[in-house]
């Protein structure tokens, strides 16, 4: 599959094609291993880069200029760099503030977990096609034209109206106090 064919497939919704990109994992692995990382970390970083790439493709902000492998390498490099910087910051922190921050972060991640579950059940309650429509519009930032095509709406305009109605229905099932409490 050429780079262009792959991108066409992804745009059509054939997410499974991402599989072939794992052939580029090797170079990211050697980059991370050389720079104080482990194999698991390399896989995580590479996966995050795949997500960045995939989202950019379906939202239309990725342009095929160079090779996809170069792009993935560059994004992975950047992500790993950020992680190293964060790690360095932690190591330089004094013990007490470190513990505070750790506690803060724990609370944050607990809230995130709860928020995720909350939205999961809210979206399940919402049902199709709203659920998939919102996932495509909000998470993948797909263009309305593409959403209209994938979900069979007559135009981008009607897809966008449908999206707003779905958002409203989702919002109506959510209580302000509940969701703000998870901030």
């Amino acid at each position, binding site marked *: 599959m050429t780079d262009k064919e792959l991108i066409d497939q992804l745009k059509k919704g054939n997410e499974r094609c991402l*599989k072939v990109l794992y052939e580029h994992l090797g170079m990211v692995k050697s980059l991370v291993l050389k720079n104080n990382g482990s194999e698991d970390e390399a896989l995580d970083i590479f996966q995050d880069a795949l997500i960045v790439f*995939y989202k950019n493709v379906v939202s239309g902000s990725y342009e095929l200029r160079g090779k996809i492998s170069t792009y993935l390498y560059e994004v992975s490099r950047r992500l790993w760099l950020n992680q190293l910087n964060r790690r360095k910051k932690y190591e330089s922190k004094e013990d007490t503030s470190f513990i505070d921050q750790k506690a803060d972060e724990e609370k944050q991640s607990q809230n995130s977990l709860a928020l995720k579950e909350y939205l999961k059940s809210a979206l399940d309650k919402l049902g199709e096609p709203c659920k998939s429509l919102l996932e495509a519009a*909000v998470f993948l930032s797909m263009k309305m034209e593409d959403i209209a095509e994938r979900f069979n709406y007559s135009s981008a305009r009607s897809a966008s109206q449908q999206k707003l109605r779905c958002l409203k229905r989702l*919002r109506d099932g959510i209580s302000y106090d509940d*969701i703000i409490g998870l901030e």
Partner: protein
Amino acid sequence: MQEELKNIDLIDKYLRNTLSPLEKDRVEELLLNNPDFVKEVEVYKQIYKGIALKEEEELKQRLDNYFKEFQQKEENPKGKYRRLFQFTGAVAAVFIVGVMLFFFNKPNRVDPGSTTDPGIVKTDTIKKNDSITNTQKERIAEEEQKKIQKYPQDREDNIANDEEKNNEKLKDIVIEDDIQLALVGFETLPKESVREYNFQKTLSYTFNDKVFKLYGDPLISRLELSSIQIIESEDFGYLLKFQNKNYSIEKTSRRKRLKPISLEDQNNVADSFFNNNRDLKKSGNSILIETPGVYQSSRFVTNLKVYFDSKSKVDRTYFSNQKEEGLEFVISANFDIKKAKVFRIKQDSKEFYYLVHENEIYELKEDAKESSPLIQLDIKTNKLARLFIERQPIISFIYKKNE
């Protein structure tokens, strides 16, 4: 219903940063004056965050599965890849045999001092001028091998594609790698120090018993500030006179837009208060009049990153980097990173960048591809640089009509 959908549309665009300039004005107004709208924005922010968290987790799980499938396929290659693998294997074997021939054909190659096992050569103890690396051919062979160890994936490409092209590509990646290693020594400026300020003259204010803060024009002169007059009247509430205009204000801890008083009130008010200063007297306690600086009125940005090498002993320099995720500045200067801030100032759809370190202001050019010197700005000649002056509040009084 339509009205509600319209607001949801605005919130959606606001959160995805796709508002048109007109819609932006509308949203800003709603954010200032409509607490319900503010609440809704908060709710949708959480909804979007929740959806993103949930989706990302699910996508990661699917990716795990794709990876497993990929690995299985790797283990028993078949179909059109089989030939490629066989070919790759054959070429690799020939190559390894070649490299081994180089090593084993050389007499007196082993450094007897560095290892007890004469069969092992520690490559990190080899000096450049060691007889062991003396021959040109050998050096080339080693470099080749290093490249391959670094990028085994590219080895495959090498065979599949035009070799010359690939050699170039290898070089590119190796060079990039050097930059990466150098950057690890840099510190990232914390996100609270990388800020954006939208410079547009929409005046807003907060007001309580002790302080009146005027937002929207940090360039206002001290003279103009000290001519501000606040008057308390039984008929009209609080009135503010500023730059020859009259505004009606009220106590508020949320920022409100400064609204001129209505035309019909204008005449009455003007006649009975502002034009006749002799009838006014100071009342009660003093009040501070402040114009909060850029720092207080600006917000964090995510698409601007600043890396700092504060241990740099050479000249103060910087360069910029336009990345997919946004702009980057890489700055080398012996500054205290805790006191350094970088601002993006937006004015009339143009963007300017400034580095502020204590009392010094430096301009950063968006298109500085080459390393450029940091040049300190003169506040007297650069108008925008004046944004960063810290201003002392002015002490004033609330006036009342002299009965």
